[in-house]
C-alpha cells in the first residue's frame, strides 16, 4: 500500500515584523505590570510553555520528522528544522557534557530583538526572549521529554552571544505492567 504523495499546502506567512513588534509590546506591558524581573521572566516562560504545547503539533504536522533516537538528534531537529521554520534562523548546537543530555543552542542572529537596542535601566536581569525557552520546554513536554531550558548567555545582557541551554531530565519511571499471577 503506497502512501499518497505528500502535498505541501501554501502556508500563509504573516509578516515577521508583526510578530516581533507584538512580542515587544507584550514585554513592555509586562514590564509595566510587574516590578521584578523574575516575575516577568516567569510569566514569559509560562506563556511560552502554553504556546509550545500547541506549536509542537503544528510543527510535527508540517515538518513530518521521523522518530528521534537520541537527545542530540532532537536538539539538532529543534535547531535546524523548528527554528528555521518559525524564526528563519539556524542556531548552532553544541553538547555540553559527556553524558550527552545537556546541549546549547547558540543564536548569532535573534529576530526577536531586531528592534531592541538595549534593556531598559533597572531591568538588567530581564530575559527578553524567555518566551523561546518556554516554547521549547512546552514542546518537549508534549512529546514526553522533560527538559530544563534556560538562557545561559544573552547578548542583551552584555554577553557575547545568545545561548539557550537545554538539559534533558531523566524520564519519569514508567509503571511496569505487572501480570496478575
Amino acid at each position, binding site marked *: 500500500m503506497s502512501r499518497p504523495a505528500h502535498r505541501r499546502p501554501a*502556508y*500563509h*506567512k*504573516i*509578516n*515577521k*515584523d*508583526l*510578530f*516581533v*513588534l*507584538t*512580542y*515587544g*509590546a*507584550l*514585554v*513592555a*506591558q509586562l*514590564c*509595566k*505590570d510587574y516590578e521584578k524581573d523574575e516575575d516577568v521572566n516567569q*510569566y514569559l516562560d509560562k*506563556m511560552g510553555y*502554553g*504556546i509550545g504545547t*500547541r*506549536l509542537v503539533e*503544528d510543527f510535527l504536522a508540517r515538518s513530518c520528522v521521523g522518530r528521534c533516537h537520541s537527545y542530540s538528534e532532537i536538539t539538532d531537529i529543534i535547531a535546524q528544522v523548528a527554528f528555521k*521554520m*518559525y*524564526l*528563519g534562523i539556524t542556531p548552532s548546537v553544541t553538547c555540553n557534557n559527556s553524558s550527552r543530555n545537556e546541549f546549547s543552542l547558540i543564536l548569532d542572529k535573534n*529576530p526577536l530583538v531586531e*528592534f*531592541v*537596542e*538595549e*534593556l*531598559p535601566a533597572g*531591568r538588567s536581569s530581564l530575559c*527578553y526572549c524567555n*518566551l523561546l525557552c518556554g516554547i521549547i520546554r512546552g514542546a518537549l513536554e508534549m512529546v514526553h521529554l522533560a527538559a530544563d531550558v534556560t538562557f545561559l548567555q544573552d547578548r542583551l545582557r552584555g554577553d557575547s552571544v545568545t545561548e539557550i541551554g537545554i538539559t534533558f531530565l531523566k524520564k519519569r519511571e514508567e509503571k511496569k505492567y505487572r501480570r496478575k499471577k
Partner: protein
Amino acid sequence: MADEALFLLLHNEMVSGVYKSAEQGEVENGRCITKLENMGFRVGQGLIERFTKDTARFKDELDIMKFICKDFWTTVFKKQIDNLRTNHQGIYVLQDNKFRLLTQMSAGKQYLEHASKYLAFTCGLIRGGLSNLGIKSIVTAEVSSMPACSGVHVQNMQDCCTGTYKAMWFAASIPHHLYLAFLPCYPSQLLPLPCPSLIPPQQTPVCDAPLPVSMCSHCSTSAYE
C-alpha cells in the same frame, strides 16, 4: 520567517494571560480590553511606519482607508478586506468575511461573546496605524450573529486646528464576518452598539515604552492634539 501559527498562538496566549490576571483581581475586567488594545496600538504604529516607508503621500482619508483595506490588511492578515463602505462623512465600514484571528474558533454561536476579546488587539492595530497616518480615531469591534447595521447617529466633529474624525470599528461574524465601521462621534455619546473600548480624545498615546522596541516618530511632540 515567523509563521502565522506563531503569531496566532502568541495572540491567544496574550488574551488568556491578560484575562487570567484579571480573574486574580489584579485588574478590573473592563481594563483587559484596554490593555490589549493599547498593545495593538503600539504595534500598529510601528507596523505602519515600516509599511509606508516608501509609499507616496496619501491624497485623502479615503485613500488611507483603501490602503488599510488592501495593502495593510494583506500584509498583516494575508487577505484584503472584503467590503468597504463609507458615508463620506467619516464613517467607514470594513467587512472581513473570514477574519484570520477568529477562523480557529467554532463557527457557531458558542464563543460569540468571547470573540470581542480576540478583536481588541486588532482594534488597537488599526487605531495605531491610523494615528501614525494622521487620523485620530476610535476603533471598536462588534461581533454579533447578524450583520451590523449602521443605525448610529452621525455627527461631524471638527477641532479648531485640525479636522479629527472619530472612528468606530464594528465586527460582525457569520461565521467570521468582520465589519469595521468608522464614524465621527463624541466619546461620551451613548451609542447603541457595544464598544469594547472608548479612548478619550485627550489621551494622547505616548511612547512610554521601557524598551525602545521601535524608533517611533511619535516620540516627539504629537501634531495631532
